[in-house]
């Protein structure tokens, strides 16, 4: 007797399963628990991680800006002013430093930041004088608008 049906039952599956699984697991190696070892759990976790990474690109810009604003506000309060006053008066004196540079100055160059705060306070006082005074005084030095073209 010759058994012929046994060899028909052997299937040849795909040869690449190991590498396809490793492609997913390599992004999950730093996860906690079984999600870094078991493929079924890792697939869900890796997909979630990628979705969070995509969404976070916009959030990072927002979070960095709020961080800079918090730092600038804390630094100006040390000098007796508030953040909105500082920014408004710096733009009025055409100092076009952005929040990132201002927060770096507040951390690494405290005396420069103090001078910027004093400049903003002087411009603020000129603004008050122009608004509350009667127009007989000449406009302040810092209120001159410079046309750069």
């Amino acid at each position, binding site marked *: 007797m010759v058994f012929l049906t046994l060899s028909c039952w052997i299937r040849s599956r795909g040869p690449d399963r190991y590498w396809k699984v490793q492609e997913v697991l390599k*992004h999950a*190696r*730093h996860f906690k628990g079984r999600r870094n070892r078991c493929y079924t759990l890792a697939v869900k976790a890796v997909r979630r*991680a*990628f979705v*969070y*990474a995509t969404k976070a690109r916009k959030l990072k810009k927002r979070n960095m800006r709020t961080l800079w604003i918090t730092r600038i506000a804390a*630094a100006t309060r*040390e*000098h007796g002013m508030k953040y909105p006053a500082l920014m408004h008066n710096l733009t009025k004196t055409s100092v076009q430093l952005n929040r990132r540079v201002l927060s770096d100055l*507040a*951390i*690494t*160059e*405290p*005396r*420069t930041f*103090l001078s910027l705060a004093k400049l903003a306070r002087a411009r603020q006082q000129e603004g008050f004088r122009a608004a509350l005074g009667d127009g007989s005084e000449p406009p302040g030095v810092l209120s001159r608008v410079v046309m750069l073209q």
Partner: protein
Amino acid sequence: MTSRGTPSRFLRSVLQNGLGRYVCQLKRVSIVFSKKAQSSLGVRDFIEEGVVDYAKKNPGTVVYVSPQPSNIPKIVAEYLNGNVREELVTNKTSSQISDLLTKLTNQSGLDVIRLRKPFHTDSPSIQGQWHPFTNRPPAIGPIKAPQRDAQ
């Protein structure tokens, strides 16, 4: 492709390379190609025309030309810090290969991964970094000479 899942590094130069003399960081270039395959046609043209000029222009880089029976022609660049970069040059023209070689010459051997910041300083603070006592007036005054009331 998360930021924690993929490696990243800070911007740096290799031992402040351009500050004094500039040292080309490319140590060795091996061009692996085949003598008869169609995919290495551009490589063979480059070896006829451009390799000798390239080797003379870069005296600090060793150029190895190794014809082997291979399907895929490659350029293997080794750098002074030990990194090895392989570039496939199948079906590229001679000018594309010379552009690729200039790109590899200008690179330092540092990894091509995400740079955390596009800038780097060794001395970030000139006026002294902020600490909680920078903007506070001192509580005790300056040291004065001892009073001569006892005399």
